[in-house]
């Protein structure tokens, strides 16, 4: 399953809730304001690091670039472009957005 999160962890608990429901082997894609969670020094990045033990985490590069965070992605998180976003949707049998 692909989980899509779009809210900053500082604004809403969707990222946390998503991680609580993601099962081993699932993929989590961070878009829009959720990209902050995967950046170095962010309070939420510790949760991302822990999650990386069981799930794959991706982050949308155009949203990182817009927010001046492109160079700050923590190790283990995979940056993707919109084409990569589409590939994640087609490669996973089901998609869930955490709104």
């Amino acid at each position, binding site marked *: 399953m692909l989980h*899509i999160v*779009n809210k900053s962890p500082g604004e809403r608990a969707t990222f946390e809730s998503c991680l609580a429901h993601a099962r081993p082997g699932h993929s989590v894609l961070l*878009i*829009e*304001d959720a990209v902050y969670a995967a950046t170095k020094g962010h309070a939420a990045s510790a949760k991302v690091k822990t999650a990386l033990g069981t799930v794959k985490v991706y982050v949308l590069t*155009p949203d990182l670039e817009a927010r001046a965070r492109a160079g700050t992605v923590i190790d283990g998180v995979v940056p993707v*472009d*919109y*084409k990569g*976003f*589409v*590939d994640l*949707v*087609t490669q996973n049998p*089901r*998609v869930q*957005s955490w*709104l």
Partner: protein
Amino acid sequence: MKIGVMVNEGPYQRQSSDSAYLFCKAAIGAGHEIERVFFYHDGVNNATKLTEPPQDDRNVVARWTKLAQDHGVDLVVCVAAALRRGIVEQNLAQGFRISGLGQLVESAIQSDRMVVFGD
């Protein structure tokens, strides 16, 4: 692959409509079919032709219209949500059509994937 898309937020206030549009464009570019884009909740506000953004800003509504014209994407606006928000045939932008919620369920049945964008 056939992909259905749902947009639940209006233009400009949130990034949802931009993200959905860029996703659709990338999916079409990768050879997939965007079966339908269904606009619900405040997402119906993406369909008003009265939108007039400043010159140096993107025109979210016109972009959707162009996607429909260039790639035959079916842009459906939920009638109940639209009536609540004053979106009617008279102010409907080109490329959009107003129909029922059944179109969303039907799209989910017929598509291989359903991707929801919203708040």
